[in-house]
Structure formats: C-alpha cells, structure tokens
C-alpha cells in the first residue's frame, strides 16, 4: 500500500478517509486536522494562553506536542491522582516530555489538595473511582486556569472518547449531558474558562500512531480503575461497527453535533450561580466539588486526624 501523496510505502491506513499515508505525510495530516478543528470551531487564537491537561497518555501528549509545534503558548497541567504505580509512571512521562520540549508543566497533587488520592476518595464517597476522579479534574482544570490567567483549557479527548460518551448519553437519554457535549464549550460564566478538544476528529489509533512516529514516550498501561468501565465497552462496540462500516464513528458524532445538539441547546436554559464556598460556577448553592470536599474533610477529622494519605492505597 502506497502513500496517497507520494510513492513511498504507507505506514498508516485510514479506511474512513479512504486514504493511506507514509509517516511524514501522516504527521502532516494530523497537523492539518488540528489546524482545521481549531479554525472551524474558533477554539483559540494565537494570543490565547492555553492550559493543556496532561495525563501522560497518548492523546494529551500528542495534543501538547502539536500545540507547541504550531507555536501556541501551551502550558501543561498534570494532576497526580495517587493511583499507585500508574500515577508515578504518568507523572514521570509527563515530566520527561516537558523537559524534552523545554515546556512548562504545572504539577498538582490530589493528595495535597484533598488529603487523599482517588482510591481512598472512591471509598469515602462510595462512588466509582472514575466519578470522583472526573469531578476533581474538571474542577481543578478550571480553577487553576482561572487563578493563573489561562484563557482556555485544552484536553486530548479523541473521536473514540466522544463517540463512546455520546453512545452512553444516548443509551440513557441524558438530555443535559447531550446538550453540553461539544468539542468547544464557550465560557457562560465569569468564573468559567472555555474548554476545547482539538483532537476530536482523530481516533485513538491515530493519536497513538502520531506518538509512535514522533517518538513520544507515553503511558501505554491502562488506568487500573478503568477495568470494566462502560466507556471501554462502548468503544469496543463502536470499533466493531467501524470495522464493517468505516466512517460510522465520525458520522455518529459529527452528525450529532450538526443535527441534534443545536436543538438540545435551544431547550437548555440553565442559569449558573457562584458557589457560596469557592465562587466557582454551579447550578445550586454549593458546587459538587465543595460538597465532596466537605465529606472528605469530615472523614479525615473522624478517621485519620493525622492525615489520610498514608492509608490511601
């Protein structure tokens, strides 16, 4: 199989685009996807200060690499989640990437912020680990961006992530989540920073291929808490359909954005208030992060007044 742009042997085949590329032309394809997505959805401008959420996985590191290469002001933010060796390796990979590019990486520890990491937090809240993890990350990305003067938060969510989330939202007919699902969420509150997902048209295989060709070392291991997650089941189902019918994932998500989300947005009128405790945007009096933090502090006061982190395994 040859590259569609030159006579060289192809290294990546993209069946949904009926295309195949050699490594240099594949990198060009990915760069063009990013540039097109940023422009089409007006995600950010050259003068914006971008805070890039860095997990140490392929998607976030590919995004950071692409933004730095394109000349954007892109600072990484890595939140250490306290998930054993997985978190240690994730932090090391993020630090190594930042050092190799001479880029700034802000590091933040959930243990320092809350007094515990994700595993103990899950037990204290009696909720799945991914639930507490997601709540913390969403809150902290916005808070740190605001405090440090960033104008936009960028995450490495890819087409598989978005199509799987959409499938989950549709299967449960979660109208509010459907109305909010977008690769570019404008700020609708003075304390809310714009959030963008510039890689939303690339699949996981495509971001992984980008990292491999660019020689980016990323955490291949799965988060131990992801085992059995619904999102993995949905991704598997969607990829089985994709194998038989290339382009389905893209049509599913982009069709939603073009034809369904505008209608859902019109009926969505949620007034955001300022949280009475932290000032961050919320639909109630106290935001879900502060409610969670109160429960955590109560737990620590009763069970581990000298610090919970030592028991957080």
């Amino acid at each position, binding site marked *: *199989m040859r590259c569609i742009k030159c006579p060289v042997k192809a290294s990546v085949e993209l069946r949904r685009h009926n295309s*195949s590329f050699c490594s240099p032309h594949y990198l060009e394809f990915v760069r063009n996807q990013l540039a097109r997505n940023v422009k089409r959805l007006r995600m950010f401008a050259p003068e914006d200060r971008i805070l890039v959420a860095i997990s140490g996985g392929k998607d976030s590191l590919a995004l950071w690499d692409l933004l730095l290469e394109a000349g954007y002001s892109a600072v990484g933010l890595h939140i250490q989640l306290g998930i054993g060796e997985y978190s240690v390796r994730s932090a090391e990979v993020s630090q190594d990437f930042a050092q190799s590019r001479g880029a700034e990486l802000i590091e933040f520890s959930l243990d320092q912020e809350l007094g515990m990491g994700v595993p103990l937090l899950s037990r204290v809240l009696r909720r799945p680990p991914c639930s507490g993890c997601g709540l913390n990350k969403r809150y902290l990305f916005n808070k740190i961006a605001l405090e440090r003067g960033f104008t936009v938060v960028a995450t490495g969510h890819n087409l*598989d992530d978005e199509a799987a989330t959409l499938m989950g939202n549709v299967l449960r007919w979660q109208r509010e989540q459907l109305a909010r699902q977008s690769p570019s969420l404008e700020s609708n509150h003075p304390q809310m920073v714009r959030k963008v997902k510039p890689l939303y048209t690339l699949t996981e295989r495509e*971001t992984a291929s980008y990292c*491999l060709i660019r020689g980016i070392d990323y955490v291949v291991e799965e988060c131990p808490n992801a085992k059995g997650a619904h999102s993995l089941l949905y991704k598997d189902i969607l990829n089985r359909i994709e194998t038989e019918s290339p382009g389905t994932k893209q049509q599913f998500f982009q069709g939603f954005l073009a034809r369904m989300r505008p209608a859902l947005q019109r009926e969505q009128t949620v007034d955001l208030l300022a949280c009475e405790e932290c000032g961050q945007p919320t639909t109630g009096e106290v935001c879900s992060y502060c409610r969670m933090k109160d429960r955590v502090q109560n737990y620590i006061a009763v069970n581990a007044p000298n610090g919970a982190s030592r028991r957080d395994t």
Partner: protein
Amino acid sequence: MDVIIRNPVRRELQLQGSRRVKQLLKELDLNPESHIVIRGESLLTGDEMLRDQDRVEILSAISGG
C-alpha cells in the same frame, strides 16, 4: 515469527508461516481499528506481509475510564 502483544498486558507468541498483518490480527481476534502493528521502527498497514523471521509488536490503542 515472534509476536509481542501489549493489550495492554504483555504476552509473547511464536507463529509459523507468512501472513498479512490483517490476517494476523484476525487470527488473534484483535480489532484493526484499535490495534497498531509495528515491525522495528515501522508502523505497518493491513496488507503488509509478515515472514517467519519477523518480530512484530501489537499495541492496543484503546484507553478509557
């Protein structure tokens, strides 16, 4: 050929006989949409022929949570 699978747990297999990348993935029941096959430094497309002396790595591209 030597086949190293990181899905994401690492395991190694030895297979006899030439076959194309897409045939190898089918035999191993691995979806080509979510796996990358690498030989040396090169990423391989589905039509690439693999020989007995080859050593290939199959990497899962899926992450989640």
